[in-house]
């Protein structure tokens, strides 16, 4: 009986929710902030000379499986692509030719990220997601060049769920980042913070804290609890202002401690979405009704003279968002099917919001053996990879395998008969003594990357 009541209550809520409205300006604020952050981010990337260092200078790249067709566009191609991306980001920010700008930005940004796994960062992944989400939403229907240029586009209201999708997405990032920290190394050994904190003892203001023995434990627990609970503090109207102060403190400190670029800015910027109204307020006189979660009357009637104009979103977009969020909830768990020891073999590690979760480094020596003569020689990785690529490759099995396959091909061209590629890869995780990551006897040129556990990856113990 109670179940039936609950179900009928829920279905009533859902019916109302689907049609609930929020001020269009809320979504526009998100668009403006996101666009501005991307303008800063792109400009910074270009100004630091990273286009050349990351996408033009390297001889080889590590594409994502299934995206091998995504290649660097070289010089001047990459510069043009970044120019287009930057222009599109400005377009998103201003809401100018928004449909085109937002789609171009999302595609260009994601294309660049797909060129090389080396540069994969959770926050780039987050930017790609946000970019695609925003290009499906009517974020340009007010406070935009488009709405000014073509007044018929201007609306007062957008579906409420279009703003909630962004809040849910942000919450997913934080909560999964907390889950990634729920392991004994992080909570009870205070690793890797016990390594990272003393390295930051020269920071202004907080530097002295970094050398206290208990600081890593405090930061480990505080970091985990922050990530786990911050979405809820932000959702609650009463705690929201305090929570946002915590957001600023947290991201400022981590931004000072780690070389994490624009990420702190992106998070502090986008979490302001929690402050934007997601219901049509009573002050909004043109609003006919205000759905409310908390009031006894689910719908409050408000006297008004005219109905608010509202942006309609095709039903399909709603389904796409639903499926996207469902995937977001499932994807970080996929390692349970593919890995015994995720931090070690990283099979299912990416796209799971495992931010700053471990300190890992490797030294990889590859040998090339002529299958006919048996002549064996070792590879100087610096001949093919930049230092960043080598660093990332030397601890991630999928990149090691890709590299081995490329070595096979390049040495075959250089006259070695069907080269046998073997790798001696010593990896240290959270300060533990190095262990072999890859079976040094296996000919990697004959192995493929499987969805399941890869037999050429050795167990940690």
């Amino acid at each position: 009986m109670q179940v039936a009541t609950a179900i009928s209550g829920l279905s009533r809520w859902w019916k109302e929710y689907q049609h609930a409205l929020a001020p269009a300006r809320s979504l526009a604020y998100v668009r403006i902030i996101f666009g501005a952050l991307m303008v800063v981010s792109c400009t910074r990337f270009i100004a630091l000379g990273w286009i050349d260092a990351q996408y033009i200078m390297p001889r080889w790249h590590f594409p994502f499986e299934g995206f091998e067709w995504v290649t660097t566009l070289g010089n001047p191609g990459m510069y043009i692509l970044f120019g287009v991306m930057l222009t599109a980001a400005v377009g998103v920010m201003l809401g100018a030719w928004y449909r085109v700008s937002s789609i171009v930005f999302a595609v260009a940004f994601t294309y660049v990220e797909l060129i090389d796994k080396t540069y994969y960062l959770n926050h780039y992944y987050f930017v790609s997601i946000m970019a695609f989400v925003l290009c499906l939403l009517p974020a340009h229907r007010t406070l935009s060049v488009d709405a000014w240029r073509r007044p018929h586009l201007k609306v007062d209201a957008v579906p409420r769920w279009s703003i909630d999708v962004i809040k849910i997405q942000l919450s997913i990032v934080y909560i999964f980042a907390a889950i990634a920290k729920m392991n004994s190394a992080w909570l009870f050994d205070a690793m890797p913070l016990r390594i990272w904190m003393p390295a930051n003892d020269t920071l202004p203001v907080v530097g002295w804290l970094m050398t206290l023995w208990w600081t890593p434990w405090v930061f480990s627990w505080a970091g985990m609890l922050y990530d786990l609970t911050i979405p809820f503090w932000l959702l609650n109207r009463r705690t929201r202002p305090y929570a946002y102060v915590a957001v600023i403190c947290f991201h400022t400190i981590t931004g000072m401690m780690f070389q994490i670029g624009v990420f702190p800015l992106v998070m502090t910027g986008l979490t302001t979405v929690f402050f934007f109204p997601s219901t049509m307020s009573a002050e909004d006189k043109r609003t006919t009704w205000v759905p409310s979660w908390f009031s006894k009357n689910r719908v409050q009637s408000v006297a008004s003279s005219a109905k608010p104009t509202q942006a309609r979103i095709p039903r399909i977009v709603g389904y796409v968002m639903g499926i996207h969020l469902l995937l977001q909830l499932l994807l970080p768990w996929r390692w349970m099917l593919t890995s015994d020891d995720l931090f070690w073999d990283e099979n299912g590690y990416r796209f799971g919001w495992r931010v700053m979760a471990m300190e890992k480094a490797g030294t990889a020596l590859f040998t090339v053996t002529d299958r006919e003569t048996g002549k064996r020689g070792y590879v100087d990785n610096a001949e093919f990879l930049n230092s960043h690529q080598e660093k990332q490759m030397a601890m991630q099995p999928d990149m090691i395998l890709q590299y081995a396959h490329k070595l096979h091909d390049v040495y075959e061209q250089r006259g070695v008969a069907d080269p046998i590629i073997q790798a001696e890869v010593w990896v240290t995780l959270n300060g533990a003594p190095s262990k072999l990551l890859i079976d040094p006897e296996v000919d990697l040129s004959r192995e493929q990357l499987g969805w399941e556990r890869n037999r050429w990856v050795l167990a940690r113990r």
Partner: protein
Amino acid sequence: MITILRYACGVILVGFALVSTGCTSNNNPTQEFDRKAMLADLSAKLIVPAYERVDAAMLRLQSAINAFTQAPSQTLLHDARQQWDSVAYAWMDAVSFDFGPAETLYGNLSVNIGTFPADSVGIEQFIASGDTALQNFERDTRGLYGIEYLLFAGSDQEIVDQFTGAGGQVRSAYLRSIMRRMYGELHAVYQEWTQSYATSFVSRNGTDAGSGTSELFNAMNISYEMIKNYKLGLPLGLRAGQTSVEPTKVEAYYSGRSIELITRHYHAVMNIWDGRALDGSKILGFKDYLQALPSGDRLIDETLQQRKSVDSALAAVPTTTPLSDQIVTNPQPAITLQAELQKLTRFLKSELSSLTGLAITYASGDGD
């Protein structure tokens, strides 16, 4: 419920407030390591003295070369060769500091003056055509090993004859020209260290990319790889795709000083790790840094353990026969040395950077 939320929120906020404002409480420090002191020690007692010594040695070599080219004789040739030896040895102590002032617009110092093997054909072509202006980027036709070729490639009398008379004039000019260029390049770097760079190096005492410690760490490893890959691996034919040994590609082929130079180079790298001044006294180095870190002692033990194996492998390489001959007749000791050096790599590279939290690239990391 709201009260609980408020209370919990308050606790978190107080925590962050403590962190961000830096309240005073009883400090219970772990073994704190003063990176600034390490950088000050290394620059004042190892790096700058090393450059100073090469600088002085090069000046003596320059005088010896001037004397020899003015009146070529076997005695003066021997003098010049002796001075070349002392420059080469002194250079091994400085070659690892290939950052900062050593990174010039026209390439790194180690490349500009330390490229080997010398291109004897190229040198002879420049001399034959009377081109002593060095207006090119062919660094294997000059530098330390270019001078070595001109001073050591042939019997004493042959070389004296090459430099004598009208025919020897261009050769003399070429030798003096590459000597001048080499000294100029080295001296500029040395001067920059003494004038400003040492101060800047010490002041950048963080662990981020661009910090003094990070610069030194990267340079140390690149230098170490040089020994392993180019001074041993390449001439021994151990590199992928090589089908035979290439004994002429050893460092200092004509003077036959390869093994002494490898030994010296290796010890110079270890001095950075150990914290040993140029005069042999103890200063702060990476070892002391590790001592102050969790698991640091473990890494020190493992590093020292493997260094023992390198030391015995090094001792087992005969010093009486030039490396280029050993590669042909008895390569095993050198091959073993190369393998033992390879095993040491991870302790100097990934494990050291991982424990110290040193950034080794400029790129952004994963956020939080």
